């Protein structure tokens, strides 16, 4: 760090610093908008309005956030064990395949059972897809960054093959499966609220958001409260020390990466079982990669990841809204804003540490005198 002896209190560290970074990212995006000849204040307010302005927008924001929670947690779990899983994309594809198979297998006879099976199918297939790179890393030393990214391509090719072959919708021309049988869908949020007697506008937000929150809690519990979580963290900090302490590093590596794959695989629950109700080739849309940024912005802490995921969800949804309303600013603009958020909040988290620490030291110092 900056070598300063003063430590910032938790609130400043985990709230103020990220907020400052986001603010700078938004300012920089404003300059880009200005360069395009549009009013940055209009565009930014449209972004916020489009992300949180009305119930449906909120629904979409949290719908996108659900994807990011899953992929962000996936990256983070692997990272705690000292590995960089950038295969979230491929693991999510396989997870989608797993849940699709479960739904087609039992969906028409026992819909509810098939949904439960689909949740496990998604996790299982995702984990299985991560197993091979994990095993190679643990026992052969093949670097997991290389192997997981290659497995993304294999997954994509496999899905394309299945969707223009055996799984293709009869009579269809696009790489997509038949519709899931009736009744095999995760209940949507507005349906759940209706049961509680609250009316909420229709949006794709569905039960998988709660599953994602549960997963976040599970990850926190695992890391902070279990023996295996401790072993993972030790391995991640220093695998030699872990080995010396009697921890089986290969075992931790394989299990951590498989858990990571399972989390990424569950992303399909939101996209496919929550909204699309059919398997579509290319449904992951880079969410697996965005998960890396989400994990780092969230400082690899489950709560941080949930918050970062909501921020990214807002940028996705608000950015789409800008694309619809101001034709001059295409969807690529939201990619630029995301990029700047990642740059300032993810890659340069310590940009303001020095001035903030100095300021804090001055005020804290005064208080002590």
């Amino acid at each position, binding site marked *: 760090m900056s070598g300063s002896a003063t430590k910032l209190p938790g609130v400043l560290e985990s709230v103020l610093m990220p907020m400052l970074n986001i603010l700078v990212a938004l300012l920089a995006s404003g300059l880009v908008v200005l360069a395009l000849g549009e*009013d940055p*204040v*209009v*565009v*930014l*307010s*449209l972004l916020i*309005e489009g992300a949180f302005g009305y119930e*449906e927008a909120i629904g979409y924001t949290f719908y996108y956030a659900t994807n990011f929670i899953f992929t962000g947690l996936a990256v983070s779990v692997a990272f705690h064990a000292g590995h960089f899983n950038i295969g979230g994309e491929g693991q999510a594809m396989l997870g989608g395949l797993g849940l699709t198979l479960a739904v087609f297998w039992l969906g028409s006879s026992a819909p509810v059972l098939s949904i439960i099976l689909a949740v496990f199918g998604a996790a299982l297939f995702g984990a299985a897809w991560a197993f091979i790179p994990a095993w190679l890393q643990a026992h052969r030393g093949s670097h997991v960054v290389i192997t997981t990214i290659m497995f993304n391509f294999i997954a994509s090719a496999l899905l*394309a093959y299945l969707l*223009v072959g055996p799984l293709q*919708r009869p*009579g*269809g*021309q*696009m*790489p*997509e499966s038949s*519709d899931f049988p009736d009744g095999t869908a995760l209940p949507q949020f507005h349906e759940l609220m209706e049961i509680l007697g609250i009316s909420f506008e229709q949006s794709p937000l569905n039960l998988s958001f709660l599953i994602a929150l549960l997963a976040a809690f599970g990850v926190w519990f695992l890391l902070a409260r279990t023996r295996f979580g401790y072993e993972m963290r030790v391995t991640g900090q220093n695998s030699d020390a872990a080995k010396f302490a009697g921890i089986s590093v290969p075992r931790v590596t394989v299990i951590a990466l498989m858990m990571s794959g399972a989390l990424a695989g569950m992303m399909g629950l939101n*996209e496919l079982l929550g909204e*699309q109700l*059919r398997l*579509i*080739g*290319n*449904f992951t*849309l880079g969410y697996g990669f965005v998960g890396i940024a989400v994990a780092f912005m969230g400082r690899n802490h489950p709560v941080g990841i949930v918050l970062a995921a909501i921020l990214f969800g807002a940028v996705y949804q608000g950015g*789409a809204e800008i*694309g*619809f*309303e101001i*034709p001059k600013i*295409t*969807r690529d603009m939201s990619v630029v804003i995301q990029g700047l958020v990642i740059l300032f909040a993810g890659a340069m988290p310590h940009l303001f540490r020095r001035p903030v620490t100095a300021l804090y030291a001055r005020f804290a110092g005064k208080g002590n005198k």
Partner: protein
Amino acid sequence: MKKLVIRVVAAVVVCLAPAFSAFGQSFDPVLLYDIGGKFDKSFNEAAFRGAERFSKDTGISFRDFEPNSETQYEQALKRFARRKADVIVAVGVGYSVAVRNVAKRYPNIKFTVIDAVIDLPNVQSITFKENEGSFLVGMIAGLSTKSGKLGFIGGMDIPLIDRFKVGYKQGVAYVRDDVSFIENYVGTTPAAWNDPIKAAEMARSQYARGVDIIFSAAGPSGLGVINAAKDSGTLAIGVDSNQNHVQPGYVLTSMLKRVDLAVEQAMNSAKDGSWTSGHRVMGLPEGGVDYALDEHNAALISDAMKARLEDARAKIIAGEIVVEDVDGGNSGH
């Protein structure tokens, strides 16, 4: 701080104002492109031109959207349906399931879908007899080839694109029976429409193997084929829009698919109340497909060729020549 709040509020009002004025306008048409973008010089651009003409004639502006992935088809449809667009024109085979889903949910909104057949009371489906237009450009290729080797590069490997190929080959066979073909497809996913680099590689390989004319039915990817034709001094045949001007002298002709007409007619009919649901087919008799002839390729098409083409056109319209089709050329749901 207070100033900032006021500014933000003002900004929200300002940015909502155009949205309200769009509602204030009595008629609100929407055009949704397929992957590849509005200015692809091919399929999507044809749709854009049709909507532009409608807009110029009536003074009514239209809204449009370019998806960049297949999951956005449905999101875009839903969004405009919720905002009560009067007619939503979606161009591209990829929209078929998405239009079906959204049209069911919004039975009061009119949808026009091009290249797919959806059997719902609020959906108008327009498809083209691409095989008939491809027959004519096939004849031109057959009459022009010197090497006796012709190429075909399709976008996505789907029955819709096979239909171009079948018509093309039959057209060639109608004028010559000693021609061999080399065929390639860019891919199997919608990304294949937007991969001019891969299409150019395929074209180079075909030209290197002695092909002297390639017909590319690949939307925006076809631009790669046309550039490869220029690089190797050979000929390409454009598709959907008139692409003769893209590399003048290297584009033999273009198979016109009048998506512009379909879009314009859909918007016009929705405006004057004559819009009807159901399936409409646009072939040679309806002027839905044709070959392109302009100053850029005038030197390449002789009068004798023109005479034969017009003769064949009359025979197809009269039913004396039946151009083959493929099963499942248009997915119906």
